């Protein structure tokens, strides 16, 4: 038996599923109140998660329990829970943000045509994410992973009546699928290499040194394919900005705090596979992350849609985590700390943006401005979130970014440099976003008002979290986070003064530059007036166009047409041929039956009838003729008998 709450950690994942089912079946019985089940389920999960973390703080170790539900030969697939410090922290993150979003959506989604359905999918998604976090088996993780993809698809396309929304949903689904296929094959490779799908066992076997490095490298690279898709890393990042077509609470929960972080979680959870692979695998991870980090941050500069700024920011921040994963165990732990803090402040930013959008009925910052007086709560909470994103002390984002920089400073100079430059860009676009949204003159229509308490409440809570959670991992405050989340051994975390100074300088530089450029509104936007540079950014590096021309159109017009032709001629031809052949044989058998068999039967009957027709005339009814035959017969018999 594990300690108190931890042995029931699986219920954290199960309760939202139950809530989803209840909402689905009885949600509409109580119109407008279908949020109750989801909020209750996720709220209970959150309380239970706190209990699990409490157990862990009390000194509990990693705890695993499972049931085998499927076994083929030596391979056992399990359904269970593996709870260590990382799991406990992730449970808190997911349930906390999910609870905030569940509450926030009561206000944001009120009056929506599919309000109940929205809560069904939201709760189902939460359950799937918790399953990914708690899984002790890679296939169990994959199940949650795919269910998340489905929920993401459903929620991006929540308002599917508009084609742009359903297109975005399809794009997100297919793009992430492209990453999911390598992920699945990575699991196969790991099964071949280690003979198990149990995550802790894989770690032990891979660490044991009996598995060929080539196999491990292949597995690590394939698993990373899943991360590229799910965590929107270059070159598959293109779906995430489009995913902003979904309702804003969905963007906050799925496309900022949880699902997109699952890719990072996967790398960290399977870190022994990555660390025991050939060194170039981690180099690939670092390069992909580095390109994404900087490239996405630049794209954030030119967006007018506030949610798209945040989307590119999310891609960039996820790339921070991915990149620093390549810097060894210390980097992995720092990445998880950033994942932890980022979930809170990015969810806060999205929900704040949602509050603004709710008030001005537009996503575009060119329709906003001057909102700080009209929406004070939204403004202050959004400002806290932005400062955290920019990396200003003492907020959460500063501490986690600092830990990542410290990890990079130990021999990863290139990573360090890219992170620092990206930090400047991040601070710049964050300042641009805040200034354009909240300062200057109001440029939109109507009179925007502060959102109701059910919307601002979660904002305040998340803002409080953004201020406080950073101290969990801050070196001066004891860095207790790193005693919970560690790979093999606890890393000692120290505050390196020069790194912190450089980090603050970079953030400050970005903020100051942003303030200088955007203090007074200019038309056109300065970032759009930089010639070729702006054009390339506005066209998103032409990637969408390249994918469309190079992959989507050829696949749709050539490959699909060819497959369709093959299907219609060859496959259908074979099927129809077999059918025609069968019919021909049947016709032959039918003919044989009708002519030969029936002919024999009818022939016998006809012969009997014909013979009978002739012989019946013997029965004439004349008694004397019968008697004559009788006597003739007797005479014949008498002659025959006497002859013998």
């Amino acid at each position, binding site marked *: 038996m594990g300690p108190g709450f931890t042995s029931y950690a699986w219920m954290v994942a199960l309760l939202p599923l139950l809530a989803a089912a209840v909402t689905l079946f009885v949600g509409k019985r109580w119109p407008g109140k279908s949020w109750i089940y989801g909020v209750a389920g996720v709220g209970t999960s959150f309380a239970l998660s706190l209990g699990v973390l409490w157990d862990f703080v009390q000194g509990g170790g990693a705890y695993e329990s499972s049931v085998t539900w499927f076994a083929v030969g030596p391979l056992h697939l399990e359904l269970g829970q593996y709870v260590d410090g990382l799991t406990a922290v992730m449970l808190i993150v997911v349930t906390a943000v999910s609870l905030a979003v569940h509450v926030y959506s009561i206000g944001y989604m009120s009056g929506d045509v599919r309000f109940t359905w929205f809560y069904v999918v939201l709760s189902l998604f939460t359950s799937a994410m918790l399953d990914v976090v708690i899984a002790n088996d890679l296939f169990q993780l994959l199940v949650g992973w795919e269910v998340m993809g489905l929920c993401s698809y459903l929620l991006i396309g929540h308002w599917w009546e508009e084609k742009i929304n359903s297109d975005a949903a399809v794009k997100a689904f297919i793009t992430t699928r492209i990453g999911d296929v390598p992920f699945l094959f990575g699991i196969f490779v790991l099964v071949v290499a280690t003979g198990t799908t149990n995550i802790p066992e894989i770690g032990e076997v891979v660490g044991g040194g009996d598995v060929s490095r080539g196999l491990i490298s292949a597995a690590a690279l394939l698993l990373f394919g899943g991360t590229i898709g799910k965590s929107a890393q270059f070159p598959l990042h293109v779906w995430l900005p489009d995913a902003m077509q979904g309702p804003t609470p969905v963007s906050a929960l799925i496309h900022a705090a949880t699902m997109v972080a699952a890719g990072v979680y996967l790398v960290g959870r399977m870190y022994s596979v990555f660390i025991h692979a050939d060194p170039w695998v981690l180099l690939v991870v670092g390069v992909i992350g580095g390109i994404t980090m900087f490239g996405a941050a630049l794209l954030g500069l030119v967006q007018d849609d506030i949610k798209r700024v945040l989307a590119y920011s999310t891609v960039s921040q996820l790339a921070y985590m991915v990149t620093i994963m390549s810097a060894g165990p210390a980097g992995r732990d720092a990445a998880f700390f950033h994942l932890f803090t980022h979930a809170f402040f990015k969810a806060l930013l999205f929900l704040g943006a949602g509050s603004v959008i709710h008030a001005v009925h537009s996503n575009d910052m060119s329709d906003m401005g001057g909102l700080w007086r009209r929406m004070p709560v939204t403004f202050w909470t959004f400002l806290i979130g932005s400062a955290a994103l920019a990396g200003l002390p003492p907020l959460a984002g500063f501490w986690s970014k600092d830990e990542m920089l410290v990890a990079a400073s130990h021999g990863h100079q290139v990573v360090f440099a890219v992170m620092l430059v990206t930090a400047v860009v991040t601070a710049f676009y964050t300042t641009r976003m805040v200034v354009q949204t909240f300062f200057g003159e109001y440029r939109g229509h109507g009179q925007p008002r502060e959102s109701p308490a059910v919307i601002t409440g979660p904002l305040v809570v998340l803002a409080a979290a953004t201020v406080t959670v950073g101290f969990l991992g801050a070196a001066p405050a004891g860095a207790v986070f790193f005693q919970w989340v560690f790979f093999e051994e606890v890393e000692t975390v120290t505050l390196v003064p020069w790194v912190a100074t450089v980090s603050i300088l970079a953030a400050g530089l970005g903020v100051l530059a942003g303030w200088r450029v955007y203090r007074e509104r200019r038309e056109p936007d300065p970032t759009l007036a930089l010639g070729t540079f702006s054009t390339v950014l506005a066209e998103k590096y032409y990637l969408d166009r390249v994918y469309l021309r190079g992959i989507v159109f050829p696949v749709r017009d050539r490959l699909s047409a060819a497959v369709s032709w093959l299907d219609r001629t060859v496959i259908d031809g074979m099927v129809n041929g077999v059918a025609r052949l069968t019919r021909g044989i049947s016709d032959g058998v039918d003919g044989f039956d009708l002519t030969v068999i029936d002919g024999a039967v009818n022939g016998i009957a006809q012969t009997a009838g014909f013979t009978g027709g002739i012989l*019946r*005339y013997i*029965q*004439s*009814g*004349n*008694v*004397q003729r019968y*008697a*004559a035959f009788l*006597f003739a017969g007797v005479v014949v018999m008498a002659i025959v008998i006497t002859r013998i």
Partner: protein
Amino acid sequence: MIRLPLVLFFSAALFSTGVYGVLARRNAVLVLMSIELMLNAVNVNLVAFSQFWQHVTGQVFALFVIAVAAAEVGIGLAIVILIYRNRETISVDEVNLLKW
């Protein structure tokens, strides 16, 4: 003592007369009478052989035949009467419904 072959010739002639009557006559009563001739030809034979072999079995048999013949004639005449009532004829040629 009459000799056996003589008696046998007599009975054969009697039997042939009966056969002729059965086959050639049209009147049903005459057909029945011809059958009686044939039966009695048999009876003559039975008695003759009984005498010849000095054995009583033949005579007993003849008595049985006489009894059976009486019953047969009774039934036969009843049938003839019924046919006459229904069809107003006793010609065997015209009673030929039971055919084909």
